[in-house]
């Protein structure tokens, strides 16, 4: 008799971890396969199984995989850096972005300057632009950049102000040496 093709013969990672029977309607089963036990363990450690379940029930089914992946990402970040979590990664990326914007402005200005002078008789022969983004050892204060506006959510919650406040502490704290996770599919 057909009909139960999606039924897993073994428990999902969540049910194995929680030591319970994995039912056909298990909300975790499609997203926490049994061959990825660490993924659920991390998510459970940070968020708790019941909270994850509540979040998943809230979102449409077609978005649950992305939800689980982003929760796993956040959990990983929090376990790596228990003080700043994802905010540490955001702070580093913001700093990198600021350096790149600076370097791009310098490079463009130099190029424009040379192009403008190319008709003149006397040239100032300079070295190529000194670029901050190429020298990872430099600590650059994070200036205000226009990314902040898009992170302002509704009803007064300013993600921008929170990021500023937390990220400056994060940089001073020195957390998050590296967080080279690939982009999540959006």
């Amino acid at each position: 008799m057909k009909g139960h093709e999606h039924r897993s013969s073994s428990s999902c990672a969540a049910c194995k971890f929680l030591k319970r029977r994995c039912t056909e309607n298990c909300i975790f089963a499609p997203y926490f396969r049994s061959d990825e036990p660490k993924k659920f363990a991390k998510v459970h450690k940070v968020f708790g199984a019941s909270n994850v379940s509540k979040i998943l029930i809230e979102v449409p089914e077609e978005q649950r995989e992305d939800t689980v992946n982003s929760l796993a990402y956040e959990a990983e970040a929090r376990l790596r850096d228990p003080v700043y979590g994802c905010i540490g990664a955001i702070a580093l990326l913001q700093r990198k972005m600021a350096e790149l914007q600076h370097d791009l402005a310098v490079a463009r200005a130099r190029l424009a300057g040379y192009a403008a002078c190319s008709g003149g008789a006397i040239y100032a022969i300079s070295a190529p632009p000194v670029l901050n983004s190429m020298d990872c050892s430099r600590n650059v204060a994070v200036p205000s950049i226009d990314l902040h506006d898009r992170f302002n959510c509704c009803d007064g919650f300013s993600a921008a102000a929170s990021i500023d406040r937390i990220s400056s502490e994060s940089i001073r704290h020195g957390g998050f040496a590296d967080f080279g996770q690939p982009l999540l599919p959006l």
Partner: protein
Amino acid sequence: MNSTRCAACKYLRKKCPPDCIFSPLFPASDPQRFAHIHRIYGAGNIARMLQKLPAHLRAQAAESLSFEARCRIEDPVYGCVKIISQLQQEIFMAQSQLAKTLAQFQVFCNSLSIADPQFQHAAEASSSFIDQGPRSNHL
């Protein structure tokens, strides 16, 4: 002894002991802050995370947890990871633009050095800069 309960103990409807771990971090004046954190992480998980940290770092941890919880409530699918993803994309684009500009710079210097030997030095320096990649002073 705390005469008033902290936001956490008020929310959880329990007594607020003098050594309550939440009390310094979730004052009664901002009940929503704890409510958001509890909704996403759960009080038990938060208490456990905070207990593992030295006392002087707990305020920062509470702040970042509060931020992430709020992001997750606003966007249940991506939470604050959306910000990371956007930044990564923007960095990639900025790096591409920078590489393009440097390449244009090199082409320009090369063409000028052909026209005018004074620019030979700048062209060679620019070329070796692009070829060598990032400077490694203290890496």
